[in-house]
């Protein structure tokens, strides 16, 4: 299997390289370039999954590594010019991932654990944000771009950076849960926390960036003024999407997986034009179906599961290809320090939450590992940070991005191990039974 996977990767890479020689280096053909990159990354990511299975590392990490390796900064088969065209796929993927997460969250089932989920969400975020705030406040004294700032300005810089890094990753958690076919208390609790926490992060980022715009007048962005339509508009759009899906399933039913995918695609495309968040749209639609309608999210999640694997593969491969390796290596020490501090903060917060909500120590430790990964939301917030706050946004944003990269690479491995250790991975159980 390994030899076949490696030969396939080599063959597809050779075909792509030969095709790209049609136009001069650095040039691309709009549309075809993206289709080529999509096909190439998807085939290679599927082969990488086999290699990851053999190496016992998460497939998701393999997808990210594929993106990094064949992306613009290493081999360059997927060029920087191709990446913006792949945003089409990314938006839909984020929507689908959030939709699947929403479909998994049954409030009635979660009710006994709601107190633990709420406590853990708030405390882990606060603890991580406090420690990160302290770190970034210290870093502002070292960075040339922020060395001359006043205390208030430094506080704002640290606040915004800490806020972004307090985000979790529903995408990675859903990806790992789907890959390991996991079900159980740890899976459900982790998924609930990352979803709830990311909703909180979207709101707090709007507040902290508004504060930032007051302290740094003249910087771009919309802050709180954009929050209300963004947040509530997305939730309303998600509710409508959920309603349409419920209607479709109850009246038609056929091809519901394709219909779900198409609807999320429209939502992602329209969301871009209307400044709505595909994650919130997908999540609301999923939550609505699972908790309000009689259909239940599981039915649609099952129908859409066929496209879930290719979606995860292409989403994380594109995320990997977008990683700016040059910028990462320039800020690696700060990024590593921030990743460790964040991990420590989450662990401390989880321990306190465990004591308050009566969770046992092993469960708390495993829960911490599920909160380490970062991807979609955090990257989206970094993009805002880079765009909104000039000149410090670029410098601090690069460090924040570096931290996300560290968490992106290490987080999935640790979470997968936690899920297997908790005995919630059906995939692992099947594998052991076969062995």
């Amino acid at each position, binding site marked *: 299997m390994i030899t076949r996977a490696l030969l*396939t990767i080599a*063959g*597809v890479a050779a*075909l*792509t390289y030969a*095709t*790209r*020689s*049609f*136009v*001069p280096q650095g*040039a691309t*053909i*709009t*549309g*075809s*370039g*993206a*289709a*080529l*990159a*999509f*096909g*190439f*990354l*998807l*085939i290679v990511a*599927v082969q990488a999954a086999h290699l990851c299975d053999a190496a016992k590392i998460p497939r998701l990490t393999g997808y990210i590594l594929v993106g990094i390796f064949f992306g613009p900064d290493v081999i360059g088969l997927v060029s920087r010019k191709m990446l913006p*065209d*792949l945003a*089409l*796929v990314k938006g839909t993927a984020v929507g689908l991932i959030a939709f699947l997460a929403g479909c998994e969250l049954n409030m009635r089932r979660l009710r006994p654990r709601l107190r633990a989920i709420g406590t853990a969400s708030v405390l882990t975020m606060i603890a991580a944000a406090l420690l990160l705030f302290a770190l970034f406040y210290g870093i502002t004294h070292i960075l040339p771009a922020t060395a001359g700032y006043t205390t208030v300005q430094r506080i704002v810089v640290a606040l915004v950076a800490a806020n972004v890094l307090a985000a979790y990753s529903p995408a990675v958690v859903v990806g790992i849960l789907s890959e390991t076919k996991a079900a159980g208390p740890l899976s459900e609790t982790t998924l609930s926390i990352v979803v709830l926490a990311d909703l909180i992060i979207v709101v707090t980022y709007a507040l902290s960036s508004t504060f930032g715009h007051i302290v740094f007048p003249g910087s771009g962005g919309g802050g709180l003024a954009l929050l209300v339509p963004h947040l509530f508009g997305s939730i309303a759009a998600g509710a409508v999407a959920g309603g*349409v899906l419920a*209607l*479709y399933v109850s*009246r*038609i039913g*056929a*091809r519901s997986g*394709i*219909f779900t995918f*198409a*609807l999320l695609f*429209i939502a992602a*495309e*329209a969301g871009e*034009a*209307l400044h709505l968040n595909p994650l919130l749209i997908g999540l609301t639609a999923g939550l609505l179906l699972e908790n309000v309608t009689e259909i239940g999210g599981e039915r649609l999640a099952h129908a859409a*599961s*066929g*496209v*879930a*694997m*290719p979606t995860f*593969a292409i989403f994380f491969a594109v995320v990997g290809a977008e990683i700016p390796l040059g910028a990462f290596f320039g800020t690696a020490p700060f990024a590593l320090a921030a990743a460790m501090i964040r991990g420590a903060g989450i662990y401390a917060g989880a321990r306190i939450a465990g004591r308050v909500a009566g969770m046992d120590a092993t469960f708390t430790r495993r829960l911490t590992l599920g909160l380490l990964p970062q991807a979609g939301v955090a990257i989206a917030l970094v993009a805002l940070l880079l765009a909104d706050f000039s000149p410090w946004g670029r410098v601090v944003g690069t460090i924040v991005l570096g931290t996300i990269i560290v968490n992106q690479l290490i987080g999935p491995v640790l979470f997968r191990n936690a899920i297997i250790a908790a005995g919630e991975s059906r995939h692992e159980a099947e594998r052991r039974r076969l062995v």
Partner: protein
Amino acid sequence: MDAPHVAGVVIAIAVAAALAVLGAHPRVRRWERRFGLTVLATSGFPFLLLGLLFRELGVLTADVLAHLRPLFEFGLGWVGLTIGTNLNLRRFDRLSPSAAPVIALTTLLPILFTAIACSLTLTWLGVVPGKGLMRDALILMACAAVSAPANLELLLRRWRSSTHLVIEMTRIDQLAALALLGFVAIMFRPDRTVTLWHLPRSGWFLMTLGLGALLGIAIFLLVRNVVDETEELALLLGGVALAAGMAGYLALAVAVVCALAGAVMINFPLKRSERIVRTLREVERPIYFLFLFVVGAAWRPDEWQGWVLGIVFAASRAYGKIVAVRTAARIDAELPPWKPFAVTLLPESTIAIVVLFSATAIDGSGATPAVRWAVNAVIVGSMLTEAAVQAYQRRVRLRVAEETGA
């Protein structure tokens, strides 16, 4: 984005969602089957109107279309691969020897008649040689070739043995249309100065064949030993995207290269070929809706030239089919009478939409008047043909009812 534009986007999305639901509704599908209607005539037509509406609302702008181009390329690849899987050589071997001249006549004569009539009309409308006449005539010829196997009801009633022949005829039609589309892509290459490969046209012809065959082998090798259905779908998606991307990158006809790939793949010993074809067909219909939607945006029903061309297109195509069928009856005496036989072959296949779509959206020439008229010609022509076929069918149904006293 200003408030009216936002409202336009929201309304348009709501209409699109409602239409998609209606289009997939089992009752609509039942109507299509019962009355022998084509996708274009029933659930497809609202998508054409929707494209028109989106353009009027300012939603479907050139920027939006450019943004969606990767999806269009992928869609063309998917449809191409699906058409290619129809070309299972083992099935053609089962046809009788007399079928070959019959198929050749019914495919080539409508193309020839349409080419002559539409070229003359286009010249009369001011499209002269060297200014797109050849290209537009070829596009219309490709659209004229394809027939939809939608009206088999008439044949099934008394000449059940001919249905297999009709189905294979419509498949060969598709091949002829794609061959013409491939010819257009080879003859009308993009600016040579921006690319690094400089080949003669014969070189691009061989390139199209070679790439299609190579990608067919590649997709076959990818999906050959996959047991997991999810992985199969992922590799199929990846294979189609890679094939479409490669063909598009080299400015070859995406649908043609992918159809060749599909034909090569399906003629290899593939264990789960039925499942793969089923997966391909599942997604094919929504892709047609998407293409109809984009073609609708290029549709200008207010241009009289398009209506003139449409009437000429429909009449010449129908005449070509009728002459072909009557001539074929002299070759093979066992064929059904020419009237029901011609009516069965008249409705326009959705492949015409693929051809039109390639002409309007992918190469960006949707704005030229002649292409817009061609779009109108095929849409109007399809509707006229469909109306005539349905009227004939209704008459036959009434006559049968009278004869049987039902």
